[in-house]
């Protein structure tokens, strides 16, 4: 029986090495989604390596920039307190990779609402992502909501977005209406960013 062809992926020994390999991959003209997903998945989460970026907020989840990929991608760590969740959102034509570093996150996929939709949005599927698992989504796959459904444990996830984007649409599950929001970072490179405006929030 023929063996399936395996893409060989260099397993990063730590977070720094993961970032280095990502820089190399994204320096090319063509980037393979499967390669990035496998790479992210193969990195074994070690809290000592990312604790400096993991800044939690009492009231909602936070986005903490780790690396800005020479403009090709944004790598960030999201910190989810108990019960924290995102709204339903799109990804502004970018690729989105999401890897669990600690705890669990529930991802619920939704169909894009109809043009003049005025009804409840349709759930496509849901799953709970576990330690070190890496999920992928883009606008052609659909929309999603991500939540930490645990009432006892926090969750930490590593996200890669390519190309980087700083705004997206959030969707009201009951009506399908969308609303554009600007996304901000709670911290950058381990430093807490001064809160300029509390107005628009990350989804």
């Amino acid at each position, binding site marked *: 029986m023929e063996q399936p062809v395996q893409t060989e992926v260099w397993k990063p020994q730590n977070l720094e090495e993961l970032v280095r390999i990502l820089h190399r991959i994204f320096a090319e003209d063509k980037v393979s989604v499967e390669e990035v997903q496998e790479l992210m998945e193969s990195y074994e989460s070690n809290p000592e390596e990312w604790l400096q970026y993991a800044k939690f907020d009492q009231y909602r989840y936070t986005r903490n920039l780790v690396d800005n990929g020479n403009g090709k991608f944004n790598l960030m760590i999201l910190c989810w307190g108990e*019960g924290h*969740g995102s*709204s339903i959102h799109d990804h502004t034509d970018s690729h989105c990779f999401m890897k669990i570093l600690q705890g669990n996150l529930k991802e619920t996929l939704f169909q894009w609402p109809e043009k003049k939709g005025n009804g409840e949005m349709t759930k496509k599927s849901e799953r709970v992502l576990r330690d070190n698992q890496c999920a992928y989504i883009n606008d052609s796959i659909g929309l999603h909501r991500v939540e930490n459904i*645990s*009432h*006892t444990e926090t969750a930490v996830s590593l996200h890669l977005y390519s190309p980087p984007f700083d705004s997206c649409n959030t969707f*009201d*599950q009951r009506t399908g209406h969308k609303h554009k*929001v600007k996304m901000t970072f709670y911290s950058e490179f381990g430093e807490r960013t001064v809160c300029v405006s509390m*107005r628009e929030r990350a989804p």
Partner: protein
Amino acid sequence: LPAGLSQWFPALEVLDVSGTGLAELGAELLALPHLHTLLAKNNRLGGPGSLPKGLGQAPLGRSLRVLNLSGNRFAEVPPALLGLRALQSLSLGGNRLHGIPPDIQELRSLEFLYLGGNFITSIPPELANLPSLSYLVLCDNKIQSIPPQLAQLHSLRSLSLHNNLLTYLPREILNLVHLEELSLRGNPLVVRFVRDLTYNPPSLQELAGRTIKTRNVPYAPSDLPENLVRYLSLASNCPNPKCGGVYFDSCVRQIKFVDFCGKYRLPLMHYLCSPECSSPCSSASQSSTSQSESDSEDEASVAARRMQKVLLG
């Protein structure tokens, strides 16, 4: 826990005994005068005697600021902890609570209260008496309605209500001026106008009382039996600011939709003096229905702009 704990570690400030299978936290903790954070998540606490007696009066009772009892088996909020007047943060997430005791208001210093993932069916209005509460989590419960008194929680910045059984919210929720986060998803919020079918028409006594009040019919205590004098003093003003009416026992519950700039409609429950009161009373003005609708949305528009940012997040 070892009996000598407070003698060996008198300076202990943080103790984490989460995930150790403990079925009770004993008296050995009481004499720790500097312990401000006690984490006991994911244990087997919940039976009687899970918390030591005399907790509120002990040195520990005065020092404790953060208590995390999430992931245990509490079927009720343990009365022993209601004496913790310095407690700022309490988590009982993921337990088996069916309700919240009114005496929760004793936790005068509480800022953070996490009760998500229980079986809570209703919220006591006394919860609103917590003067410093800024983060309230009630998600993943069985709550059917929110008492309007909750709007008195002026410090509230984040309110988590997702995955409950709410069909509407009290209109007073618009008064929470510092609210930045409000989660409502996973509730069967009504999206269409619901006509209230349970309006009990006012009694003759109520109708007479209303007339006396709105027409300012003069009376003195000597004119009426004492019980009627008392009755007249209990008149409530109709919450509709455009209506000068009053009601006693009979009021209408009506759901109005407040529209947040066309993007998000919230069903808010209004209590009005009569079904006719959805628009300004005919005696007060000649406004048409559509005018009055936009008038009453004007009244909410300032609050609406503020809430919009909160809701669309």
